[in-house]
């Protein structure tokens, strides 16, 4: 009895505090939450036409695309972005032979020591991981207007809807529309939208001001397999490549999943029949 009374009293007190304070004049705001001006420019991420080859329950890698994407990384992105969780030997999964991988690795340089113990660069081996373009964060920021180019190994898992995000972002360097500018001005309390000097407008970046300058232009690189290097193509290929770097086992996971789930559902069905048989004489018959 005491517990109940005590509980009721405590409950009413707590509730009273809560409701009293929540209904005080300055905490009561029913208007829509204040948004920052950059919300005006928010665009949904778009997938490429037809989606990616690895999308959906039956997704598969398109090795040709991944190889093209690797070429984009190598010729465009590697100057600023590291790929530290990927080893050269992993490239064999893209369809390269062991010898090709060894040659590819040897065309990169990784830090090592010379015979005097001084720091130097040596050709990479397949067991090495992709080197970082900068020795440390301070150097990276110094070269990039105080922005840190993120490591790209996991980028498509580190952003919501990551594969489509990378695809959209790389093509998102557009001019803001008049309507969006007007809405941004309204949200910003009458202040004109301005992209600060040193940053670039991108309609898919979370606050629309990205430190990375536009990177992809038509025919920026010449694909080894002869595919036309449009901006859209390169964006798609590099997004696919980065999806692979983030999760090399993605396709294997989905393929294994089919077997596991199908087996389990069938086993469940058998189990259900077994259960029904065991309970047959315990369930009452329906009255006629």
């Amino acid at each position, binding site marked *: 009895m005491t517990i109940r009374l005590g509980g009721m009293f405590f409950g009413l007190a707590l509730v009273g505090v809560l409701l009293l304070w929540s209904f005080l004049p300055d905490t009561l705001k029913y208007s829509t939450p204040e948004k920052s001006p950059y919300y005006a420019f928010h665009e949904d991420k778009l997938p490429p036409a037809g989606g990616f080859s690895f999308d959906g329950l039956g997704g598969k890698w398109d090795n040709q695309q991944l190889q093209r994407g690797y070429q984009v990384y190598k010729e465009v992105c590697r100057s600023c972005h590291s790929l530290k969780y990927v080893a050269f*030997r992993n490239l064999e999964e893209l369809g390269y032979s062991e010898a090709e991988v060894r040659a590819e690795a040897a065309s990169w340089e990784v830090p090592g020591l010379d015979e005097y113990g001084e720091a130097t660069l040596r050709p990479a081996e397949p*067991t090495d991981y992709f080197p970082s373009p900068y020795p440390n964060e301070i150097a990276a920021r110094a070269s990039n207007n105080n922005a840190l180019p993120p490591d790209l190994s996991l980028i498509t898992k580190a952003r919501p809807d990551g594969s489509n995000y990378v695809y959209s972002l790389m093509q998102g360097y557009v001019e803001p529309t008049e309507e969006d500018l007007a809405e941004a001005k309204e949200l910003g309390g009458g202040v004109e939208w301005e992209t600060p000097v040193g940053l670039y407008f991108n309609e898919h970046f979370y606050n629309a001001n990205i430190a990375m300058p536009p990177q992809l232009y038509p025919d920026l690189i010449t694909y080894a397999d002869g595919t036309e290097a449009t901006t859209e193509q390169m964006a798609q290929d590099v997004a696919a490549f980065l999806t692979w770097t983030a999760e090399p086992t993605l396709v294997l996971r989905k393929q294994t999943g089919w077997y596991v789930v199908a*087996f389990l559902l069938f*086993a469940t069905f058998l*189990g259900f029949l*077994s259960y029904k048989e065991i309970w047959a004489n*315990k369930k009452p018959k329906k009255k006629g």
Partner: protein
Amino acid sequence: MTSTYDTLEDAGVRRRDWIHIAAISFAGVAAGTFVIPLVSQMRPSKDVLAASSTRVDISSLEEGQSLKAVFRGQPLFVKRMTPAEITEAKNDDSASMPDPQTLAERTDPANEAILITLGVCTHLGCVPLGAGVGENKGDFGGYFCPCHGSHYDVAGRIRKGPAPKNLEVPEFEIAGDIVQVG
């Protein structure tokens, strides 16, 4: 009140029981399959397997010279024998020794001057001397283990001392100037 099931054992396995046997079998297979990743994850991981072979460039290895490398965490001796050493090794092929082996059994016939052995004494695991310049090569001109006095000949075969076996020759392949071990 007895249930149907209590009379089961009296009746023996009935036709109706196949569903129970089937259901339990499938559950058993599921459980067994679940064990596979649990056991397999302890096998060497991909990075360990990738680092499990060693490549050595012998283009600058001169006659009579040895170099030391690392193979699976252990020392590796790669020696280019002089013609005199090759002859000596072949002559001793039939000599009495604790672990008889011919030179041909220990080298690649196309590169019989290249001797590749682990630098681990087969007695108790010390690293023998003889691969470096000026090191004691023992009574047979090969390797000498200072720990307990095992003497190996020019072909790495145990000739004197407590070691029971010749220096281990790992699996290797020579392509041009590159030796791939493991």
